[in-house]
């Protein structure tokens, strides 16, 4: 049960990818989730559907279109080339973009639910206490949405760690660049290196168990702490 340098590289890369994706999704997902939780626009339904689509689409479909879009002949790819930037497919940055789309619903939904649950009342109270909308968001909404953010971060992180199909489609299998744990396990099995596959797989199982235990614990605490208030 020894980890090879490639295995350690894969673990490190996976953690780096998941962290970057989680941070970016939390920051960029907040306004989107806020809008979805509060709007009455007819666009809410379609946007909700688009955000949730990665949940049911095969990852290969997502990966396939991203490959086309980001590739040298794709719209985004060509634009990047004209700007003198490096191509995104088969690079870490490409992986980040693909993972963000793939994990989007796992971050948006907990945030959206928390914002909806907080409702209008605390915001109205804050407004009558002279807090501007931005101030209310940071002093009232953020503290009240703490558990929602924790859920969103844990789910976004864990889901990114667990992805395989999208990575394979857009990232390939380049050591220390796009070779994440799930791909590494696939490689080991292909090469009949079952011992190494076991080690990495066990690490993943323990990781998932711990993450989900943590999540349910915070959920329980969230329930009891918000009882009887407001």
């Amino acid at each position, binding site marked *: 049960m020894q980890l090879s340098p490639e295995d350690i590289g894969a673990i490190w890369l996976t953690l780096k990818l998941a962290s970057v994706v989680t941070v970016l999704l939390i920051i960029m997902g907040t306004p989107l989730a806020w809008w979805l939780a509060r709007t009455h626009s007819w666009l809410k339904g379609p946007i909700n559907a688009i955000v949730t689509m990665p949940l049911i689409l095969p990852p290969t479909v997502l990966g396939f279109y991203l490959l086309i879009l980001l590739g040298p002949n794709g719209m985004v790819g060509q634009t990047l080339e004209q700007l003198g930037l490096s191509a995104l497919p088969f690079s870490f940055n490409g992986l980040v973009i693909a993972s963000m789309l793939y994990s989007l619903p796992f971050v948006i939904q907990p945030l959206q639910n928390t914002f909806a649950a907080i409702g209008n*009342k605390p915001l109205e109270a804050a407004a009558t206490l002279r*807090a501007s909308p931005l101030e209310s968001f940071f002093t009232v909404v953020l503290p009240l949405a703490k558990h929602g953010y924790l859920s969103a971060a844990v789910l976004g992180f864990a889901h990114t760690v667990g992805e395989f199909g999208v990575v394979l489609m857009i990232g390939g299998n380049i050591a220390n660049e796009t070779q994440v744990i799930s791909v590494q396990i696939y490689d080991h099995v292909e090469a009949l290196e079952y011992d190494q596959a076991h080690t990495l797989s066990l690490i993943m199982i323990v990781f998932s168990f711990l993450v989900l235990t943590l999540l349910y614990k915070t959920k329980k605490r969230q329930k009891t702490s918000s009882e*009887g208030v407001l």
Partner: protein
Amino acid sequence: MSKIQKPATKSRNGLRVCLQQQYASTSDFSLHLDLDIPSTGVTAIFGPSGSGKTTLLRCIAGLEDRLTGNISLHDDEWLSPSSCLPPHKRPVGYVFQEANLFPHLTAKSNLEFACKRATKVTPSISYEEVIQLLNIAPILSHYPSELSGGERQRVAIARALLIQPKLLLMDEPLTALDETLKQEILPYLEKVCRQANMPILYVSHSLDEVIRLADSMIVLDKGRVIEQGNTQDLLGQLGTAFSHHQGASVVISGKVSERLEEWGLSRLEVNGQDIKIQSGEEKVGDTLRIRVQAKDVSLTLAEDEKSSILNRLKVSVDDIARDPKDQSMVLVRLLAGDTPILARITRLSAHTLDLKKGQHTIAQIKSVALLR
């Protein structure tokens, strides 16, 4: 329509509200009113549920949209056809039906949230005064979830005062509480209403609260103003929403002229006549307000009939009206000097006594309730 949309004539003092709001073309409810609200004292907004009381308050605070009209306090325009001040820029304090404290902050931090953002110039009431007024020093370190409903509401009132508003809006602050808690909070509210140096709008559907707290009132029904005026005057009239209320009452003020220590009573002088009340802490010379319910007043023509009823006032009949809800009863408006008193008696009694306008009679008052 055209009447409401013309620019309101500015009033130098007091709150001027002239607005209309329509939710949706499908909804029956719309708000449509034009009000000048006194710049001092407590104005109650009274009416059945669904009459638009809360909506009116929310409009004034800026929490409602789809609104046209004018709102101004003193000379500051909050809403005009060309501008709308967002809620966080309006100098109001708002007490919600449910306390609506921030659950993630302790009572003290909830108050500090207000203090930090309070209008800096000339605070009208200090932090210490507010804490003392509402008696919340012992509970400051608690989170809202650890407080009782009444305690939460007291903290919420303190929070609204500490923003140092120019106008205090209270939306049925007692409704969410049970009867015991109501009685616990009312004295605090009375103190706040008397000491707060600002106009207060108090929404309520309880005649009891209105009588105890309000100097003047506005009666709403289906989003329209149906009555407006001084509480004492309005209560003493026939044909108003109050005279049909089962708690129909008048408020009478009088001066304490003597304390009858031997009997545990005090003598109150009202327009040259005496009303005896149970002694409390009042001193000779104090002005007291009492509430007399129409159902506690009976009429007799006999001047010196012996009776267990102490309070017998010489009155003249001013007007008689049938009770639209109960065919067997009539309401009689009496005048003791210029003080109106209402009596709710059976139609048969009125017929037997042959009551006519201008007739002199004796009003017997079974019981009175002392206010403030």
